[in-house]
């Protein structure tokens, strides 16, 4: 079980596109309301499973091979905030687009926080071992089409209601799939960053001369 009790507001503001805006009280209030609504409607669920690190099915492309180098095992995981969040954002778009945008950003924050909780759960299970960061289909040259296989292996459609559509997009939309490498030995601290990002420097953060923080 994952319980989210609060959401990272600075992250939400960053997703909204501006980090240096001077907040007014009306915006503060909107952020308060939206944070509460996401916390109320999110039903975070997750699954994970250990797979052999040499599983050919999972090793498409070079980036994942680099990522798992030196690892003896790999854990594939998925997490979702559930259908309620999609419903909430869809309805709100009709009534108040400004609010919908804030909800959407907070939902992105929430799924990332939920994934961090899964990281901790996995870390606890593999106590004494070393873990890589979460590497998701869609990073670098790691094909997003793998999302469907991941979900099948995890039995995610049946167990937590997480599916893909024909284009391998996750439904509900606020969801994540990823691989974490497990090693007996300390792993060189590889960082998430522009090198493995599917946007490869073309994102809005890079265009503005900064970066997303990873």
């Amino acid at each position, binding site marked *: 079980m994952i319980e989210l009790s609060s959401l990272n507001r600075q992250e939400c*503001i960053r997703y*909204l*596109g*501006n980090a*240096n*805006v*001077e907040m007014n009280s*009306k*915006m503060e209030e*909107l952020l308060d309301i939206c944070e509460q609504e996401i916390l109320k409607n999110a039903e975070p669920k997750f*699954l*994970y*499973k250990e797979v052999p690190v040499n599983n050919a099915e999972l090793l498409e492309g070079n980036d994942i091979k680099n990522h798992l180098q030196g690892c003896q095992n790999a854990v594939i995981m998925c997490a979702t905030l*559930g*259908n*309620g969040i*999609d*419903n909430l*954002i*869809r*309805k709100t*778009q*009709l*009534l*108040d*687009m*400004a*609010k*919908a*945008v*804030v909800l*959407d950003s907070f939902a992105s924050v929430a799924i990332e926080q939920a994934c961090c909780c899964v990281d901790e759960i996995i870390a606890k*299970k593999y106590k004494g071992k070393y873990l890589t960061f979460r590497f998701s289909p*869609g990073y670098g040259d790691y094909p*997003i*089409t793998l999302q469907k*296989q991941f979900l*099948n*292996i995890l039995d995610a*459609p*049946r167990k*937590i*209601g997480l*599916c*893909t*559509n*024909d*284009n*391998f*997009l996750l*439904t*509900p*939309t606020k969801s994540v799939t990823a691989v974490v490498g497990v090693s007996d030995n300390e792993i060189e601290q590889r960082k998430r960053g522009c090198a493995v990002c*599917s*946007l490869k420097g*073309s*994102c*809005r953060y890079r*265009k503005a001369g900064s970066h997303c923080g990873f």
Partner: protein
Amino acid sequence: MDFKSLLLNKEFVMLDGAMGTMLQKAGLPLGEMPEILCVTHNEQIADIHKQYIEAGADIIYTNTFGANSYKLKNSGYTAENIIPQAVKAAKKAAENTDTLIALDIGPVGQLLEPTGSLSFEEAYNIFKEQIIAGKDADLIVFETMTDLLEIKAGVLAAKENSDKPIICTMTFEANKRTFTGVCISSMVITLSGLGVDAIGVNCSLGPEELLPIVKEMSHWTDLPLVVKPNAGLPDPNSNTYDVSPKDFTQSVLKMLDFGVKVTGGCCGTTPEYIKELSSALKTEKFRKKENQKKSVVCSSSTTVLIDQPRIIGERINPTGKRLFKEALKNNDMNFILNQAVSQVQGGADILDVNVGLPEIDEKAMMVRTVKALQSVIDVPLQIDSTKPDVVEAGLRVYNGKAIINSVNGEEKSLKSILPLAKKYGASVVGLALDENGIPKTAQGRFDIAKKIVERAEQYGIGKENIFIDCLTLTASAEQEGVMQTLEALHRVKTELGCRTVLGVSNISFGLPNRELVNSTFLTMALQEGLDLPIINPNVESMTGAVRAYKVLADIDKNSRSFIENYNEFTPQKTTDNTSKHDLNYAVMNGLKDEGAKATEELLKNTDAMEIINNKLIPALDKVGEDFEKGKIFLPQLIQSANTAQACFDVIKKKLTAENNIAVSKGKIILATVKGDIHDIGKNIVKVLLDNYGYTVVDLGRDVDPQLIVDTAIKQDIKMIGLSALMTTTLKSMEDTITLVRNTKELQNPDGSSKCIIFVGGAVLTEDYAMKIGADYYCKDAKESVDTAKKVLG
């Protein structure tokens, strides 16, 4: 023996246990699709079935849970070659026994619209294939379902392509809802209405945790209840289950009090569990539960019991509404959705849906509208049309139990509408009129109502599902008729025992102060026994009359709901219509009401176009500039834009009243491309373009390129905006652009394109946009507006 006689003759019907668990135990190769084993290891599958038969199962489920064309895609197998093999294995195991074979069907494996992109019709076709391939089974089982609309598609496919009995079980979480939010009552009511043979719950949780779920199910149906629990809760990692066969059996026995008739095991259970359970059941007696018949309708997440007055909102109806007609002609779904949401906020319990207009395809529109409505509101719908094929199309895709509006005493109507009510398990409004028109007297109307109830009974529709409308006549024209209506209503309620429904607002036609007449008549009708007033819930005096009536009639206990609604109510004073701030300030700060008021004031002595060009647009431009400079947030930009929209609306209203041409700077198509379901970015662009005075034709998300081309041709639109969020769907964007460019009707005589295409989305870059043939790349909503200005002015 068939399933129905099994139910009649046996105290309890035993199902089997898990297949997956047994496959694992048998050491069979577990690939992604265990169903393929039916072809490659038919003997071993038959052996597992056999073990369950020996353990006491009366019915075994074929190993076909995921054998559908979606899941089997790329596997090298099809439903047609797996399912007959699966049935064969089961038959072989059942040889020389009375065991029945159930064709097992699980979820498609992809979410249906609106969260996913699988359509109801696609789901229906997938199930149809499975049902036809499994024609040699004795019955059909849908299990582990979480979406009511998906299982409805399955049940309809089963009913329309076979005559086998149907068992339906869904999977619930501890919060008594499924992953998609379906509640227990809605599931049971909807599926009972569709005429399935047994209903229940499988998988989900352990038997102990299922008890409250089964208890609630038993409250809503008299059908045999089915329970197939897991062997406890799974360990998330090892995937083992924690309840022993003995404890499992003890927990299931506790559920017999709620009328459980059919039982077995799901994940983690083995022949041991089935043996233990079936021998324990030998000394037990089936405890039949009988419920009072209930008048009730539902959406997938909300059940409305008609045990007290419930408001039906009347506003989704084009009759006499110019803007509504315009919206229908332009396919403007947002207009209709806004009408729906505001009625629900006003207090509607149910919404009437009428989209009949001579110049549109009413059937297609009904389907689109029902689908769109159920994606944003939770209240049940009343499908309103004079055409049976439109009614059927609406009922078919409705995710719940709807009301049909309406049938009447005419033979033709009875014959075409009542079978639909039966087939789709809908309630139906019965109008007290026939081929001779509306009877003048209460007696005449009562007689027709009686006839409708009797005819419905012949179709197997109980009177709890007939809501009689005794018809409101206009008081100014037929004053003596008013009391006849009320008398008929009273008699229908007390003598026939039917619920009553009445459109109220007609009463005051031709009189001054209509609202007063309407609310008085409404109160009189409620006192005579009106259950379902059809009103405009946004007229406070009408909704208020219903709420106050419920207090005075001792329905709203301790006035709880009334106090909740009116606690902060202060009687309306003459409203101060002057704005404290000017238009500029209101737009800059996103103050909608203030902006509208300021606009009204300005309109008194300023030309409309002057306000738009000299006040509104410059204010919006300033906000846009601040956004670009990072001085304000995206939500603030949207709030300002919405304020401008409120101002535009005030201006539009005035111009429409003066019969001036609508203010539009030109039409733009917006769409999120085929396959992509992330549309919030596109929707932000729409809000901004709307607010700058452009007319946006929003085609939604996951949009077929052909629809975009057809719309551009039909409505003569020269500007098209496309969005795609994911790398996987950029290909769709390219395909769409190519189709637009290659369509003759959208080319100039010299072969160049008539259309200007602008694109946006997270993974797009300027270079890529140009490469796939777009005219403009817009990095955000603001830039889309700038582009529209450049192109359309």
